[in-house]
């Protein structure tokens, strides 16, 4: 990729990345900040920038990318203190000095890589985030059960969560309690609650989230809502669940 900013005649811009480095696998090391400088380029994202650093300056740097298209949720990290998807962060929108750190709360794998997958699986098992039916397996030869098209769209609206962990990283309650289910958990409960295929009722959901590790732990600071890269309607959903759970 060509790396001058387009034809203005100005010298190319350089960006510095101050990256929090730590490898818990290696007991000899301690957490430290390390600075890397690269030349900015048109339509450069943090995906491109971090790979350039790894390929040309420091192959030991750890981070996670998969789809690099904002779809899979692998690359959430703290960019100047705010959790966001690195692949969708254009470097032209960053200041000359940018700090990168791993998401807090989740188990650290190394440098910018955290184990969101493990936590999400635990959350999913705990909240049983799958459709519960009493029906025997459906006869797959037959026409599918109908669903109201608007309802299907509403369910998808909540199903769009990519489990990136940004909401939990931004959450005030999660800072204090490791067992908090987080906005991602509420979003999923709201999703299954809306789904007519799931036979669970509000009492069932109450048993899952009706305490301080669930909706009553939420302090309504709602940073989760502001940082969600998929713009899920977390604020309304959490408020709604709290009302429902309060009467359940």
């Amino acid at each position, binding site marked *: 990729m060509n790396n001058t900013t387009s034809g203005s005649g100005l010298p190319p811009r350089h960006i510095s990345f101050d990256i929090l480095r730590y490898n818990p696998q290696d007991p000899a090391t301690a957490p430290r900040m390390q600075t890397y400088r690269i030349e900015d380029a048109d339509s450069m994202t943090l995906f491109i920038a971090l790979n350039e650093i790894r390929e040309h300056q420091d192959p*030991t740097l750890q981070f996670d990318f998969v789809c690099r298209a904002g779809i899979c949720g692998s690359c959430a990290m703290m960019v100047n203190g705010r959790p966001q998807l690195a692949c969708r962060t254009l470097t032209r929108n960053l200041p000359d000095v940018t700090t990168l750190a791993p998401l807090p709360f989740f188990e650290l794998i190394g440098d910018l890589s955290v184990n969101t997958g493990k936590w999400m699986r635990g959350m999913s098992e705990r909240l049983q985030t799958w459709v519960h039916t009493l029906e025997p397996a459906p006869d797959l030869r037959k026409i599918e059960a109908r669903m109201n098209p608007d309802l299907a769209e509403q369910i998808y609206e909540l199903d769009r969560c990519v489990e990136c962990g940004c909401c939990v990283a931004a959450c005030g309650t999660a800072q204090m309690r490791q067992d908090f289910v987080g906005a991602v958990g509420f979003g999923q409960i709201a999703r299954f609650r809306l789904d007519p295929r799931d036979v669970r009722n509000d009492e069932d959901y109450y048993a899952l989230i009706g305490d301080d590790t669930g909706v009553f732990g939420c302090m309504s600071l709602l940073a989760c809502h502001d940082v969600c890269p998929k713009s899920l309607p977390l604020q309304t959903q959490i408020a709604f669940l709290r009302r429902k759970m309060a009467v359940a």
Partner: protein
Amino acid sequence: MKTVVTDVLVIGGGLAGLRMAIAARSRGHEAIVLSLVPPKRSHSAAAQGGMQAALANVTRGMGDNEDVHFEDTVRGSDWGADQIVARMFVNTAPKAARELAAWGTPWSRVRGGEREVIINEERVTLAERVDAHGLIAQRDFGGTKKWRTCYVSDGTGHAMLFTVSAHAISLGIDVHERCEALALIHDGERCYGAVVRNLITGELTAYLSRATALATGGAGRLYRVTTNAVICEGMGHALALETGVAALGNMEAIQFHPTGIFPAGILVTEGCRGDGGLLRDVDGHRFMPDYEPEKKELASRDVVSRRMEEHIRAGHGVSSRFGPHLWLDITLLGRRHIEHNLREVKEICESFLGIDPAEQWIPVRPAQHYTMGGVRTRPTGESPWLRGLFAAGEAACWDLHGFNRLGGNSVAETVVAGMIVGEYIADFCDKAENRVPLPVTLGEEFVKREAARLEALLGHSGKENAFHLCAEMQEIMTHHVGIFRQADALQAGIGRLQRLLQRSRDIGLTSKTWGANADLVAAYRLRRMLKLAITIAHGACQRTESRGAHFREDFPRRNDQDWLKRTLAFWPDDDAVLPRLDYEALDVKQMELPPGWRGYGAKNYVEHPDTPARQAEVEAIRTQMSDSDRFAVQHALMPYADKLPSACEGKNERLEEPLEE
């Protein structure tokens, strides 16, 4: 040394892998799934456009059924597909879509009554049947006669993967995340699992299993410009190839998608064109009708991609400092449609291009997209050379797609093959003869071998850099083994790739840690990727015809007489620099749909000597049975029902085709 024992080891946690694990688990076998990343981040999540299944729910899908889907698939494949597999697939796809519906996928649904759509630049009012209200909706996709593509807005793969993953979690299926299979454990006849590296700690473990299934996805990262995720490096293909026993099929068949955003290669879905979007050139001219008057923007992907490159070569591209591109125009679909049905597209345009696709055209150019070739298997999913080794999904070649896959047929294939192959895996595990003790010592030997290789890599102070060699390989593949191919360039490409393979023996690592180490990972994967790259280039060079996505400028015609056959590639041993190729003829005499013109693209091809006789035979059977129903005719032409596991048998109900009990 650590050993893990299980009935079924599934390597890959995307749609195909998870669905196979569910099938095995549901039949009472223990299954462990391995994945490089948390399974929901597998590349299946990136599928936007949809899944083909002949449900015939929407007006424009009326009259659709297995027969039509079958013909579209075989034509799309340019007659490279195994027609038995295609039949098994089209009959199971509606069941797979309906199963997902029952498990929770929020499929977009039909709205009864009138609605406006854009077809061929015109606003058209379509009336959806009232009795179809609430059934799974379907959109148009390239290369299909009917609107058959089921979708969840434009996040289909995400929604499917989350559903299947949730179902796997509900069954308590273990997924070992951030674990990479490095080698298959086998004795030359039967596969017994894999050597697995923990990507966090670097620890090696022998996973011993009765059945081992590869579902590792595609190999797009062999190319510089690809729509594929960074983990799509063909590692499952390499696992099979490196056994020296199992073969890969049709590796030269690589699909390029017409609309990768330029220059990053991130995909915008075919749904854009399916919903009425147009391709335009530097003058704003809609050029596809000039080349393809019938299907226009919706000819199959190989055809559209070639036409685009042809148009660019003719000087009609838009120039930019990264090279020329064309435009995709979806502004005519209107903001409401884009914000509801093409939302991922909108997000991608905003985040990566800084444009609003409801107002501005999207810069696009074809990018590598899909690996039709894969681990060659029987219709049961099992390798004919290595018992107990199965494969499904993009990593496999049971051969549904031949030389070109239709949009929407891939995610459909993942779940369909997951169901079918999963059942066969369970059958395999049930058989007494396969319940042999697992070879612990063999597992240990394989672990030692891999450990020694890694130690050698770490200990060697060579002068080459894996990242840079990898970039060179991607450049070579893009330029020499891309959309347009010809003998000299392919030969030169093979030579350069072989030199890279030599140089890769002299990689020096900066980071010497045994645990998480990107440098080490890049180094050991690179050698495997190079073997695949050479396999693709060599296959492409030998195949002196054009078929589907494989286009030879020096041999522009499809040649059924000499090339109606599948390429099989074996990698002899670790010192080899070229695979051994073998060929497997397709039997025209057994085909339900003998080779002919696809209905789009070039019309001239060299006929197979058996085609006229088979064509006459097929026509005679059809005439003779003109009073019989379509199932009876199909059965007379090419029986396949005995190949379907009982869980997947049976006709599919449609509004127009009620099931008789």
